């Protein structure tokens, strides 16, 4: 009997757990010590318990396994809580048929910065949107006249561009009289236009001349009035205005004699009005200045005159003044043409 062996057994101390021993145990390798072997056995049992067949997948997972992972899905399904585990029918199936939602993400990407911006930034953004909208509407000529005029003035002031201006149109329209139109437009009547109508030959072809104030009364007593331009006996009012340098887009109806829209007097020289640089023709092709013409049945259009119906097309033809007011009309204003 070996006394030392007994003492050795009683005084056996557990082998310290160093990193190497720990790694041997955790990786399932043999350690050779009794107490540590028990631990190693436990680790092996634990690993064996995990080596079980895969559990049956839920309905949502089964759909994923059958159809594959959605390649465009970057969201992910929130795992159900333990309390919902007994109700697989209520499990969300966010995989089947999911489609990328680019628009919401885009909108959220655009609005999130705005949402986090300060009040000033939001106000500036809103104002910019409003200004852009008004300018676009003004360029299309669909704003109310006062607003259209204001927007046109602003655009003209800050940019080289021109947008339709009802004030310009009224100036031009004032020289056309249409007895058949209902536009008697009070102060916009051509008869009330205060125009210093020059003689017929003074401004022929004169480029760039600005039309006079459309609201100035017309001096019908001017010696420049031509007898032939007075109102004919039938009461129709000539719409031709005394000569002014007409722009290239002048409306031929302004020169037309009796009842013939688009006609220009044949015996009057045709002007080649030039459009002032930077100025846009008034909508409807209303000329800002008119050459002196006498009515002519030929139907020839003055050179540079816009085609009927050109331009903005939103302007109504000028009204034709009644014969009783012909005395106040400027010289050369022919009667209505329609």
């Amino acid at each position: 009997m070996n006394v030392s062996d007994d003492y050795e057994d009683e005084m056996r101390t557990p082998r310290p757990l160093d990193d190497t021993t720990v790694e041997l145990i955790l990786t399932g390798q043999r350690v050779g010590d009794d107490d540590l072997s028990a631990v190693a056995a436990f680790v092996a049992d634990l690993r064996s318990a995990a080596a079980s067949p895969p559990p049956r997948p839920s309905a949502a997972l089964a759909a994923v396994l059958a159809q594959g992972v959605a390649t465009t899905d970057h969201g992910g399904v929130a795992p159900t809580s333990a309390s919902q585990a007994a109700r697989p029918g209520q499990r969300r199936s966010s995989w089947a048929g999911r489609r990328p939602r680019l628009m919401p993400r885009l909108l959220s990407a655009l609005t999130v910065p705005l949402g986090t911006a300060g009040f000033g930034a939001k106000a500036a953004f809103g104002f910019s949107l409003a200004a852009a909208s008004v300018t676009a509407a003004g360029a299309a000529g669909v704003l109310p006249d006062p607003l259209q005029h204001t927007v046109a003035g602003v655009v003209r002031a800050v940019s080289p561009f021109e947008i339709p201006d009802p004030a310009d149109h009224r100036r031009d329209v004032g020289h056309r009289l249409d007895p058949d139109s209902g536009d008697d437009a009070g102060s916009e009547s051509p008869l009330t236009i205060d125009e210093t109508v020059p003689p017929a030959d003074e401004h022929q072809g004169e480029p760039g001349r600005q039309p006079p104030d459309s609201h100035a009364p017309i001096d019908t007593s001017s010696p420049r009035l031509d007898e032939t331009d007075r109102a004919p006996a039938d009461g129709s009012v000539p719409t031709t205005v005394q000569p002014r340098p007409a722009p290239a887009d002048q409306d031929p109806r302004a020169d037309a004699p009796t009842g013939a829209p688009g006609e220009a007097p044949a015996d009057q020289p045709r002007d080649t009005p030039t459009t002032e640089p930077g100025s846009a023709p008034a909508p409807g092709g209303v000329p800002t200045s008119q050459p002196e013409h006498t009515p002519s049945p030929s139907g020839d259009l003055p050179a540079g005159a816009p085609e009927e119906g050109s331009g903005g097309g939103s302007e109504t033809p000028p009204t034709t003044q009644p014969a009783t007011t012909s005395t106040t009309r400027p010289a050369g204003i022919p009667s209505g043409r329609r």
Partner: protein
Amino acid sequence: MANATEPAGNERFTPETFDAVLSAAQAGAGWAASRLYQALAGRVAGYLRAQGVTDFEDATSDVFLGVFARLHTFSGTEAQFRSFVFTIAHRRVVDHRRIRARRPEVAPLDAAGGDEPSTRDATSAENAALANLGTERIRRLLGELTPDQRDVLTLRILADLSVEQTAAALGKPQGAVKALQHRALAALRKQLTREGVSR
């Protein structure tokens, strides 16, 4: 289903095979997603069960739904993919602990819902008890550990994660992981010695 020549749920990929399967799964191939599921679902279920998650089957499905939702963000080896999966599984365990802390669960009587054998059928209960004896012992011994020690041990053993991967999954420093695994094994050894259980 799992290959008959391999332990179920323990499919091992070669590096080339794993890359091909991963790429196919990311491209939307259902068969590839199934391969990945079959390879790791058993381990994940065992991990969840060892952590005391009673509805481990649904929890396993939740884990893999989360894995596939983030699959497009992953790139790496099989070992890294395993770490990726068990990181998600660990979060599921943490959620389960929070829920259980707020609302204690009533252990189901049915043996299928837990490891407790049913007493209504003696034969099935005895069989279930025998079948779960090892599992019950494991769960009892693991119950002697602290949650952190149990997390480290199960991830290192069931998931085959390294110290670095375990630290990343748990969000702890590597030194802390080493200290925890030391203490866990020391506690197990003490418990096993006390019980006198040996192989």
